[in-house]
């Protein structure tokens, strides 16, 4: 193969200043491959290449422009571009957050073009104009998250702005993300490509990773490719932030928590980022809870989290990284003033994930090799009798090889990728709890002596997966991706073969339609599912179609329709054991508009969804617990000088609930047994609110300071979230939206 090109990065001159046409940038000495005889300045050839940053990550959305102004293209998600240009032409590469790079055309394939960050460093703008991983997917970077009003700069609340994500002021009873009306456990949260057991700290007030530590948040509500598995609904992918070129330390404190981030170079080829955060709310909360409430706040709630990332460029082909994510959440209180053991409620969830990865890139070939390990423990004690302690050790090796070919077997832009991974886990389980509540089941009465579910022992769950996919352009307008994934779930000894495909049709330069179909599995690993080896994985078949319109850089409009058929859903038998008799469907549509232009950032997301299921053959059709028909988010943020102002309007349907129609008193257990009405036959009312955010930046000595105030629900709309019944179910109390939630913070960067 003829190779050529240069990799030249320069500090940012004005991007509109091309090199003189008569003095094309020469190829450097280390790239001496001569141009082919046929390629002369008078005869343009098709030139392909890739734009990467200093740690070899692809830069998408970068503009590659011929110096003579005769052509201009934008890099795709993998940083790749293709442009018609004569040999000898200089290409000017620009992007919003990197310096200008120049590359000389010496042949049809250029080496990677490295764009260094601008010296001003922290500018981040949207990169969503490049193709998304699937129809309906969206990506937010750090600055987007911090600009969205009502989020307090937090990842969890930023997710709620995504069309397809169920919106709820406080996520009661789960720590995940609910996508397209399914259950939280049906979607996966990945940090640096690997799963984490929880997404947010106690009470859902903060994500386990602060926005300052992440680079991007990618949200894929469905239709994802074979590289992702173990999920029957959607994927949330967080990428931690690589250390910056310049050494810096920043501190941030708010009413909820405070943290430190340090980053910078370690030698010529290594960068680091280290972040540590601790809750502050455990100091604040006791001051605001009325003394008349019978609560003894021992450590309510306290959390730590940490993120570490070290990137090292071994040589031009190999990049190594070491990353770590960890949390330690403690929630302990006594529902009494006397700290009586029978009134104690304690939970502790902690995990530490450590990942080592090596990335290889040379010409057409790319390889990602990673080994990740995680130690996690869930510990809970309720009163005198109920407990849960599950320490888990998990090892996950993964290898992915990708080959990108300009042409192969008569097709263009062929990308072939294959991968394999193992996830081998071991849990020691000590459980003595009431029968778990599953989807749709009414909350059981609280019986402190109930230990119906009891198990003490060890569980191994060795899971393996392999996948392969190929994507190719059949016609300048048609691109097809075909993939096959096979999972072997060791606990139930189940082989799950999942074909997936996507068709992209470019209707015009700015309008693309996408259609995907695929099969997906979620292994039995939620609650006590792992204890029963006869419980199989849940299945879904997803059909997604969408339109993406990117008229200009910085503007993206997309509309998506989906239909998901769910089978083998895990439900309870009458005796409390588990089966796979449930099935259901989800269908809906989503709209998303993102605008980044000058000082403005705009966001409009709307979703309509309908999710129903049947728990047993012949049973009644009912709504999923998290069916939310309407969800609208409109946000705008404006930045000028030291000020940044933003507002957001949110409107969403209330969630379904099951009314209680009566109760019978059990005298010996001293509790009332509720008689539920039709499951999820009632719904909480619609909620709407306006959130505002203001940021002010200034210099204070050597420190760059930012103060912010983020106020949620500024007009005090207290709509009903759900209802709690009293002890005998004869009365109920509305659990209302939080009336007015200010979040203030201060950030200093040195």
């Amino acid at each position, binding site marked *: 193969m003829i190779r050529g090109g240069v990799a030249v990065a320069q500090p940012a001159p004005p991007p509109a200043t091309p090199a003189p046409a008569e003095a094309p940038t020469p190829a450097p000495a280390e790239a001496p491959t001569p141009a082919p005889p046929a390629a002369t300045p008078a005869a343009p050839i098709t030139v392909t290449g890739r734009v990467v940053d200093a740690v070899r990550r692809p830069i998408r959305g970068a503009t590659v422009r011929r110096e003579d102004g005769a052509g201009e293209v934008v890099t795709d998600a993998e940083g790749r571009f293709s442009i018609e240009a004569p040999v000898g032409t200089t290409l000017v590469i620009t992007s919003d957050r990197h310096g200008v790079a120049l590359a000389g055309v010496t042949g049809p394939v250029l080496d990677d073009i490295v764009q260094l960050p601008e010296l001003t460093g922290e500018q981040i703008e949207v990169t969503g104009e490049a193709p998304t991983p699937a129809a309906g997917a969206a990506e937010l970077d750090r600055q987007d998250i911090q600009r969205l009003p009502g989020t307090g700069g937090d990842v969890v609340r930023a997710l709620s702005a995504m069309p397809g994500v169920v919106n709820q002021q406080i996520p009661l009873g789960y720590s995940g993300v609910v996508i397209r009306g399914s259950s939280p456990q049906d979607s996966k949260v990945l940090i640096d490509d690997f799963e984490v057991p929880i997404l947010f700290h106690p009470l859902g007030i903060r994500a386990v990773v602060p926005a300052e530590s992440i680079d991007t948040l990618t949200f894929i509500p469905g239709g994802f490719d074979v590289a992702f598995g173990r999920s029957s609904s959607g994927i949330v992918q967080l990428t931690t932030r690589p250390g910056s070129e310049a050494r810096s330390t920043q501190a941030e404190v708010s009413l909820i928590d405070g943290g430190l981030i340090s980053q910078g170079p370690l030698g010529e080829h290594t960068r680091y980022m280290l972040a540590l955060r601790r809750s502050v709310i455990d100091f604040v909360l006791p001051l605001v809870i009325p003394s008349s409430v019978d609560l003894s706040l021992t450590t309510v709630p306290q959390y730590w989290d940490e993120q570490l990332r070290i990137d090292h460029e071994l040589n031009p082909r190999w990049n190594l990284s070491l990353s770590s994510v960890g949390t330690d959440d403690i929630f302990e209180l006594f529902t009494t003033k006397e700290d009586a053991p029978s*009134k104690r409620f304690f939970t502790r969830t902690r995990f530490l994930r450590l990942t080592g990865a090596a990335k290889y890139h040379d010409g057409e070939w790319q390889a990602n090799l990673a080994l990740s390990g995680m130690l996690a423990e869930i510990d809970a004690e309720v009163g005198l009798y109920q407990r849960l302690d599950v320490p888990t050790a998990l090892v996950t090796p993964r290898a992915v090889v990708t080959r990108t070919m300009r042409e192969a077997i008569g097709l263009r832009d062929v990308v072939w990728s294959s991968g394999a991974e193992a996830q081998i886990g071991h849990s020691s389980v000590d459980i003595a709890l009431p029968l778990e509540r599953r989807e749709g089941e009414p909350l059981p009465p609280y019986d402190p002596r109930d230990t119906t579910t009891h198990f003490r022992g060890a569980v191994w769950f060795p899971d393996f997966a392999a996948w392969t996919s190929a994507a190719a352009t059949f016609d300048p307008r048609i691109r097809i991706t075909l993939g096959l994934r096979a999972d072997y779930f060791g606990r139930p000894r189940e082989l799950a073969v999942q074909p997936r495909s996507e068709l992209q049709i470019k209707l015009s330069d700015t309008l693309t339609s996408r259609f995907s179909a695929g099969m997906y599995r979620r292994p039995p690993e939620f609650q006590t599912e792992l204890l029963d080896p006869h419980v199989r994985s849940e299945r879904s078949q997803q059909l997604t179609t969408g339109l993406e319109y990117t008229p200009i850089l910085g503007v993206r409009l997309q509309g998506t329709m989906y239909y998901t058929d769910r089978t083998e859903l895990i439900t309870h038998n009458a005796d409390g054991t588990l089966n796979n008799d449930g099935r259901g469907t989800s269908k809906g549509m989503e709209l998303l508009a993102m605008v980044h232009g000058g000082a403005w950032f705009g966001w409009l997301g709307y979703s309509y969804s309908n999710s129903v299921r049947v728990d047993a053959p012949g049973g009644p059709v009912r709504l999923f617990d998290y069916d939310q028909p309407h969800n609208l988010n409109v946000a705008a943020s404006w930045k000028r000088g030291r000020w940044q102002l933003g507002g957001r309007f949110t409107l969403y349907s209330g969630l379904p609930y099951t009314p209680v129609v009566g109760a019978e008193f059990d005298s010996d257990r001293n509790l009332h047994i509720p008689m539920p009405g039709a499951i999820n036959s009632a719904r909480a009312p619609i909620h709407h609110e306006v959130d505002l955010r203001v940021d002010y930046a200034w210099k204070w000595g050597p420190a760059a300071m930012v103060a912010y105030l983020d106020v949620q629900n500024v007009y005090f709309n207290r709509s009903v979230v759900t209802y709690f019944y*009293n002890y005998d179910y004869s009365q109920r109390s509305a659990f209302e939206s939080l009336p007015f939630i200010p979040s203030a913070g201060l950030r200093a960067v040195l």
Partner: protein
Amino acid sequence: MRRAAVLAVLAGCSADVDPDWQLSHDRVIAVRAAPPRLASGEVAAIDALLGHQGQPPDGVDPDTAEVVSPASLAGALGRQAAHWTVTAPGGDQLAAARSELGLDAGAPVPLRLRVGFTRLGQTALKVVWLGQHTDNPVVDPVTIGGMDGLAQVQLTVPAGVDVPLAVNFDATYNINWLTSCGTMHDFDLATAHLRVEPEDPHAGTLAIVVRDTLGGVAWHLWPITAQ
């Protein structure tokens, strides 16, 4: 449930419902079999403690009663005068019932009853254990405001101060302090306290209800006023 309740408290949920300790509420507070466990040939009487909205609680006999399970022991339930009673059958019948329920030989047989109260329009479940004898617990001593509670016929407590309440049972017992006068704190602990705030009713009833792990139940009631 408790986590949800904790979240509700922390998040400012409005608690506009009657709390567990409120006696001024239409409900069945306890159903008692005396004795709760019977040897063959013994007879237990069934009665109950009911709470009423705006009225003092009272101890009554159920208006209706039926055997829920096992059906083979339906004949153990009977009525003597105005009282519902359970008569423990002989060893052969109990052995057959154990076989029906899959119990070990010699194990006590649970006779599950549903009793009804016409005035409240409510029913309650109660298990009487057949095959061995135990008695209901005895609520003694009871300390109220530092005094012997059982020696008091009428309680008078100061308003605006914490009045300590105590019984001598360990945490394996299910204890409920209930009142229609004032606000009860730690109502389900052996040591609780009552506080009558200015906005609270200043007259009503104080009750202690104790359950053991063998089906036994006992209660005691006091008229109470706050000054």
